[in-house]
């Protein structure tokens, strides 16, 4: 077939496809339910796209002019981008992710999670106990200014706990910016063969252990515990999960198993991204609790402990049972 005949025969189809892309391709939601009489129906588009691809292949094979091939290529590329575009996020999907997929993802990486827990909790508890026995060691771990700042934050006489300035809202923003960034970096640094994540976990464990141990030993323990027990369930768990996400990524670089290293990493990245979404959510909740509940000085110890106990139970139940029997479980 000559090029002219080819163009005359299919020109109309191409124009219709082009117009459809322009008028209805942009926003699926806004055009849903409406009808454009002079355009082909939405349901015919995949089929028309495949026809177009076949015509493009024919045009290439027969050596038609580069302009025609270029035009068809452009058209099919636009069609490709539309048909394979990312579906818009849905709220129901987000809820399902939070209650089922995220706990499942955490449990699917159980080994990495337990390792991260050990890397974080062992130095924390170890340093805490050590400082009860040898209080002077704190000067090896924290600088004098840090110690003074900590003692000021948890002064039993202060009317606000756990901060030296700022109100609830300002601190909420601060915790979001600070804590979530740390959580996300903990995961990302796992790409350095896991070393980055290990260091972050150890460092955090040691620092938190040193602060808690020192304050406990110096007699500031009561306000300190009253401040931290509320948000600890979400914050500490989130740090461990972010660490686990980083460790599994690093492990895939070191031991890719039966996959190519790059494929193993891509798989690990996908798992890690899902875990990070959950971690960001947990740290958001933790920031909220920390800003608006933990800082209330008049709530007595037993009140804080009760709430903390409930939250710990909820977090553990959520991560342990969440998503059982759902369609995504394997």
């Amino acid at each position, binding site marked *: 077939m000559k090029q002219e005949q080819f163009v005359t025969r299919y020109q109309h189809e191409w124009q219709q496809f082009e117009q459809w892309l322009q008028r209805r391709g942009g926003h699926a939601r806004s055009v849903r339910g409406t009808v454009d009489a002079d355009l082909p129906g939405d349901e015919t588009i995949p089929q028309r796209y495949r026809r177009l691809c076949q015509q493009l292949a024919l045009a290439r094979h027969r050596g038609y002019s580069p302009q025609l091939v270029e035009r068809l290529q452009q058209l099919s590329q636009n069609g490709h981008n539309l048909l394979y575009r990312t579906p818009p*996020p849905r709220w129901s999907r987000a809820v399902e992710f939070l209650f089922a997929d995220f706990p499942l993802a955490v449990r699917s990486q159980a080994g990495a999670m337990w390792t991260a827990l050990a890397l974080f909790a062992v130095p924390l508890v170890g340093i805490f106990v050590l400082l009860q026995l040898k209080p002077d060691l704190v000067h090896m771990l924290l600088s004098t200014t840090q110690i003074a700042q900590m003692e000021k934050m948890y002064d039993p006489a202060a009317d606000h706990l756990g901060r030296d300035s700022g109100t609830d809202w*300002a601190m909420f923003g601060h915790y979001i910016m600070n804590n979530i960034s740390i959580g996300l970096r903990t995961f990302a640094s796992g790409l350095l063969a896991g070393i980055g994540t290990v260091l972050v976990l150890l460092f955090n464990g040691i620092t938190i252990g040193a602060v808690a141990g020192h304050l406990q030993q110096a007699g500031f323990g009561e306000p300190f515990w009253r401040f931290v027990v509320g948000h600890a369930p979400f914050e500490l768990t989130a740090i461990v999960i972010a660490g686990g996400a980083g460790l599994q990524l690093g492990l895939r670089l070191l031991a890719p198993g039966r996959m190519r290293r790059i494929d193993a990493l891509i798989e690990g990245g996908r798992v890690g991204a899902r875990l990070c979404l959950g971690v960001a959510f947990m740290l958001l909740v933790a920031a909220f609790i920390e800003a608006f509940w933990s800082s209330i000085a008049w709530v007595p110890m037993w009140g804080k402990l009760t709430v903390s106990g409930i939250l710990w139970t909820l977090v553990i139940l959520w991560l342990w049972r969440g998503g059982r029997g759902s369609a995504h479980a394997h």
Partner: protein
Amino acid sequence: MPAGAPMLDTYREVITPEGVPLQLPAAGPVPRALAWLIDLLVRFGVLMVMSPVLLALGDFGQGLYLGLMFLMFWAYPIVLEVWFGQTLGKRVLGLRVVANDGAPLGWMPAIVRNLLRTVDALPFGYAVGLISCLCDPYGRRLGDLVAGSLVVHAPPRAAEPPARIETVLAPPVPLQPGEQIALIAFADRAPALSGPRQNELADIASGLSQASGAAGVLRLYAMANWLLGRR
């Protein structure tokens, strides 16, 4: 072009499920760094503009400001790359982020490639990312490798070259696609060259135009007109 031997280039060719080859011209570190710089300025600009408004709201505004800072830092590239395929900086530079197979970028890859900036930015000034970019045949940084994504040039479609002369002349023999491209490119670019150089180039194709010198140039223009469908 499929005709002839493959040229040495940074094109990544992928085949869509429908069997159509897509050519993805991978972008190198320099345009990407410029795009990143523009993004940085945009983000700082937004924060600068918003700060007096928010700080006027007192402590509540300060909280909002920090929340906005978080969104600008982490969410800005992720959301824009998923919704539009490009951040503002990439748009200015004509870049686009796509998946390895040429499909639009999904949420998880976008999250991965932007979270892993942390590693690419080590130890300073994206040094790790630059090394990875220079080692990879498609200029991907570590975040791109793990996300399975690719930054490509997506220039606006080139306008058809304007007609040089009115005459139209059919080539005496059918031309191969590569030859057609060469002829059209000649008609597009020759006017920017000096007269003697135009003649010199046109003389290479004197077998086709059956003329030499200025007459050959005009004949080639006329044939380009015919090829471009101005008949």
